[in-house]
């Protein structure tokens, strides 16, 4: 068999459409899981036993169920009880919820790693709880969490390929279609492989830059 990428030329616009959809879904899901992770991470470290418990249950549930099962439940299960959500929204929401469980865990450990003395200093200076969280806890925790968050987000991008199973023609979905139309799965999936690798590599470079930028003054490992 001959390895011939040129046969894919006329399918490139279609594949790019899929890539664009992947990019949109992943961007929204990264934002969603970060927002959710912040809230749940804060709950998980709060003094309130109730908030703490609710957060812990959420994390345990969504970390311990295969993503594809969660996705099927949302997309095929919920309509049974009268809840219809389109594939794209379902995908983004499911990715955000699943990603949020991992994100919140990373943020929680970032918060727990903060020197308690620093927080005490903020308390005695009379800052309100919410101000301490916004101005002290969050910026310090996020700086420490950039790299592990990056791993979570990369995982999220890779997991987004599963959205192809609920009729969403994102990158993987559109590649599957091209593969079955051209009967050239080797070339098609080779391109897919390179595309995901390039996407995640770009993200990890960005994360590295962000980490270095945010921690540029912490060279002594102060945090």
């Amino acid at each position, binding site marked *: 068999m001959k390895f011939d990428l040129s046969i894919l030329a006329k399918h490139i616009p279609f594949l790019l459409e899929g890539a664009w959809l992947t990019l949109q879904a992943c961007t929204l899901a990264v934002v969603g899981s970060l927002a959710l992770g912040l809230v749940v991470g804060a709950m998980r470290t709060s003094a309130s036993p109730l908030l703490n418990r609710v957060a812990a249950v959420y994390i345990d549930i969504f970390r311990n169920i295969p993503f594809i099962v969660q996705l099927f439940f949302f997309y095929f299960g919920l309509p049974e009880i009268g809840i219809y959500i389109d594939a794209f929204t379902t995908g983004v929401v499911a990715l955000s919820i699943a990603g949020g469980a991992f994100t919140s865990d990373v943020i929680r450990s970032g918060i727990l790693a903060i*020197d308690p003395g620093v927080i005490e*200093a903020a*308390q*005695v*200076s*009379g800052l309100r709880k919410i*101000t301490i969280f916004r101005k002290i806890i969050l910026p310090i925790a996020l700086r420490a969490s950039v790299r592990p968050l990056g791993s979570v987000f990369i995982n999220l991008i890779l997991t987004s390929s599963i959205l192809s199973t609920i009729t969403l023609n994102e990158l993987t979905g559109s590649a599957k279609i091209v593969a079955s139309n051209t009967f050239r799965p080797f070339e098609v999936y080779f391109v897919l492989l390179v595309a995901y690798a390039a996407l995640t590599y770009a993200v990890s470079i960005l994360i590295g830059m962000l980490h270095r930028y945010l921690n540029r003054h*912490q060279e002594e490992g*102060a*945090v």
Partner: protein
Amino acid sequence: MISITGLRKSFGAATVLNGIDLEIRQGEVVSVLGSSGSGKSTLIRCINGLEKIDAGKITVDNFDVSKPRELAEARKRSGTVFQLFNLYPHMTAVQNVALAPVEVLKVPRKQAEAEARELLNSVGLSERADAYPSQLSGGQRQRVGICRALAMKPSYLLLDEVTSALDPEMTSEVLSILANLAKGGTTMVFVTHEIEFARSISSRIAFLDKGQLIADLPTEDFFSATGMALPRVAQFLSKMRKD
């Protein structure tokens, strides 16, 4: 006035403070001495509300620190300097100093930062005002810590072993600043192991032993026959002087 009556504090089975009565009036410099584990730092942490007290009462200008609403007012009136500095690592010296005035006292940011620079200038850090804590030496960090406490214009300065983490040279940088503040009339509660320095700046010495206040004397009395008449004080002083 900071007023402490019948203060008790335990950590589990260990009673750290066992019935402390102490008053600190405006303008006084009170040094709290005692061996390690005598409860000195816990006393400070009770005054600024970092530890919940088990019994007794602490008021700062009549605000009861055990009541959450009043604690906020009490905290506005006292500033704490910590042994390990506890600076905000992601903020420059100026930002560390200006944060609370902006957020708590609602001073406009520009004005707060200008005042922060002035304070840093007064402790010889004008060149380092825009440095981050990790870029400063221990002595410089502690000077920023002092400025951060002073920026809130507190009536009382609570100093918790502020030189214990510093080498002798840095210690003297920090002590000379405290001596100036004392001269300027700042009220201070000074928990320390620096006996000679405490003697030189304090108006009174409070001596803690095993959670009890066994001496509360004017400085000159503490270091003379009156203090020496107390066996634990005599023992402590002779031991510290030998070291």
